[in-house]
């Protein structure tokens, strides 16, 4: 037992030391991210002192870019399942070794999600009121309590799976199937659940007709399975370029077909939503009208949503056409899909739900500089986590670091 603990300690220690060494590109990248993280921390310190008045939010639009980014990134985290399913359900060989990159992305994404929720709290010092057992946990009534469970559960599942597989690889032994395969399958279901629960957060609000629509859940999943794998396609190419890790084009093209189908479903569901809203033209169309065309002279979101739709449409056509078998076009499509969905699901979903207010008032929202800096800080922190995790994982996967070459 003591020996096992000591072995594990050496492993953790070596991994941690790895995070601080690299070539000049690594330092430049990490330094660049750190600078923005620091900017974010500074901005948050200001918000912590003055309160959320430093944001563009108000009683009328009481959630803004924090929750918008949170919602989007939950989707990115869930998308790890899109690597896991082909491998473990359909025994896809190409993606087999890449699963761990998806799972590490999920871990980083959940860390970002939790950060975004924390910065949105008015009383972060009272976070312990949320902890089951010592606080008051309104389960199962509040969807937010479900979200706390599924997000933290998903984090633990992925940390366990990645950590266990990497440790086994480090030790040079075969992982015990019973110790991770069940968790892999639980994680697949769990990935769907984190995003469904996040959708239910909105769907469950009867007083907000823009969100109170059963299609929001499926749209969330479809858009997540587009944006997430798009990011993974891009990330894998970066890994391939800066490390000696072998990633085949075939693996990328397998992911392409996932993005392709998801994007089609995503656009199809969007069309459904738009039809229902505008053809029936009930009083509840006001938010959609505000989003797409502007309402009573207020149209802050109109350019954004049309940019998003243009991005999604171009991405969809690129993905359908055979030209996206060339990585150049595939990358363009992935970037467009990612940006398009980020706008559509972030600002395009959260903000119009508040406009007009339930009393018909129109108060527009735009994030402040401080708010934007906090968001950028958290994004950079997420990238910092992901880079660090990859920095540790890749040498282990390549066998450069293993029990065999322990010096201590």
């Amino acid at each position: 037992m003591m020996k096992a603990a000591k072995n594990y300690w050496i492993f953790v220690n070596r991994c941690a030391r790895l995070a601080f060494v690299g070539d000049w590109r690594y330092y430049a990248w990490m330094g660049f991210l750190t600078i923005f993280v620091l900017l974010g921390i500074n901005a948050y310190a200001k918000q912590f002192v003055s309160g959320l008045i430093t944001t563009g939010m108000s009683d009328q639009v009481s959630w803004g870019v924090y929750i918008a980014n949170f919602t989007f990134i939950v989707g990115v985290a869930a998308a790890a399942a899109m690597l896991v399913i082909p491998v473990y359900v359909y025994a896809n060989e190409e993606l087999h070794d890449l699963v761990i990159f998806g799972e590490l992305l999920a871990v980083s994404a959940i860390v970002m999600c939790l950060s975004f929720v924390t910065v949105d709290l008015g009383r972060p010092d009272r976070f312990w009121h949320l902890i089951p057992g010592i606080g008051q946990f309104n389960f199962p009534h509040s969807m937010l309590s479900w979200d706390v469970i599924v997000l933290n559960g998903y984090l633990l599942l992925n940390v366990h799976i990645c950590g266990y597989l990497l440790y086994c690889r480090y030790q040079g032994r075969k992982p015990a199937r019973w110790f991770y395969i069940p968790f892999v399958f639980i994680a697949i279901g769990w990935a769907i659940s984190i995003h469904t629960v996040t959708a239910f957060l909105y769907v469950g609000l009867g007083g907000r007709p823009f969100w109170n629509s059963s299609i929001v859940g499926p749209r969330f999943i479809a858009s997540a399975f587009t944006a997430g794998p798009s990011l993974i396609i891009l990330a894998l190419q970066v890994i391939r370029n800066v490390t000696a890790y072998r990633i085949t084009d075939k693996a990328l093209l397998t992911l392409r077909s996932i993005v392709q189908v998801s994007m089609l479903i995503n656009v199809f569901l969007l069309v459904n939503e738009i039809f229902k809203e505008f053809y029936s033209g009930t009083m509840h169309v006001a938010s959609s009208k505000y989003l797409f065309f502007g309402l009573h002279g207020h149209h802050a979101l109109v350019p954004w949503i049309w940019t998003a739709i243009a991005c999604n449409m171009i991405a969809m056509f690129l993905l359908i056409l055979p030209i996206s078998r060339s990585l150049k076009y595939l990358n363009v499509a992935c970037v467009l899909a990612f940006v398009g969905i980020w706008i559509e699901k972030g600002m395009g979903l959260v903000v119009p739900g508040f406009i007009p207010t339930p009393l018909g008032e129109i108060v527009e929202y735009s994030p402040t500089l401080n708010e934007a800096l906090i968001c950028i800080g958290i994004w950079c922190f997420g990238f910092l986590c992901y880079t660090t995790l990859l920095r540790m994982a890749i040498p282990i996967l390549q066998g450069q670091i293993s029990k065999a070459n322990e010096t201590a």
Partner: protein
Amino acid sequence: MSDSSPNPNPDSAQKPPEHGQSRRDFLRTSAVVATGVAALAAALAPLRDLKDFTTVEKFLQKYYKEMTPQDMEKVLDRIRREVEAQYGVRPTVQDLKPMNGVEFVYCLNLTRCIGCRKCVHACVAENNQSRDPEIQYIRVLRMPHGSLDLEKGEHNYDSEQVPEKNYFYMPIQCQQCRNPACVKVCPTKATWQDKDGITVIDYDWCIGCRYCEAACPYFARRFNWTRPTIPKDRLNPNMAYLGNRPRRQGVMEKCHFCIQRTRAGRYPACVEVCPAGARKFGNVLDPESEVSYILRNKRVFIQLKEEVGTSPRFYYYFDV
């Protein structure tokens, strides 16, 4: 990343060939780390301005429903001390419990309301809301005749005189729903419905996630976006724990039917200030009460947004 370097073991990257070069590397790395830590410390500099954000006592304060009477007495005493220190007035702060056999209902006569907004400001004065930034529990909408579509309502009318021709006025505040959406969504049970029908908030338990604000179909909830400000001479010293005691930055608040008055048997401030007598309040379980009379005798009364299933205890009615 380092894998492009010829050395397969990045651990050995720390063992450079030459002594002098290693020293320079060490200095450079130390400089980065030192300036990085300095930048982090500087980034946290705004925290210097943090004033009485929390104390150990406040941080560890128990949930309202789990406090013993002794705990509550201690907390009330702390609040009295804090209020006195900040506003120079010794307040009476009580923890008023709901009465047996009482369910409050509010009725508002849309035929009578003239849209003068006195209720809005009497409410602010009674309930110690922040004056700047402004927090108000009541919104009065100026509605064109013939429609109950709230989107047609004007919130910011600034007429020379009210009432105006071809409009009616619709004040909206917390509807004290029988199925409150806000209570359901609160992740920490910081808001709940008491047995007299009032939905209250434990201001010291709320984490400020604003989910209730998103859930409320009546725009009834308000958030303290920053430290609330109340001029000393406008503080109402008659306070209740779940009612009008001063709130802090980062928590929700809303109309609580003036708990500090109504649970002591009195009418709410908005009822007593209405020059048109449009506001009626009372115990619906008492058949002799004004509200029972209204629900029995007035032909048309509406619960706002009945379709959302919240079943408000706030009724709008019309004369004849």
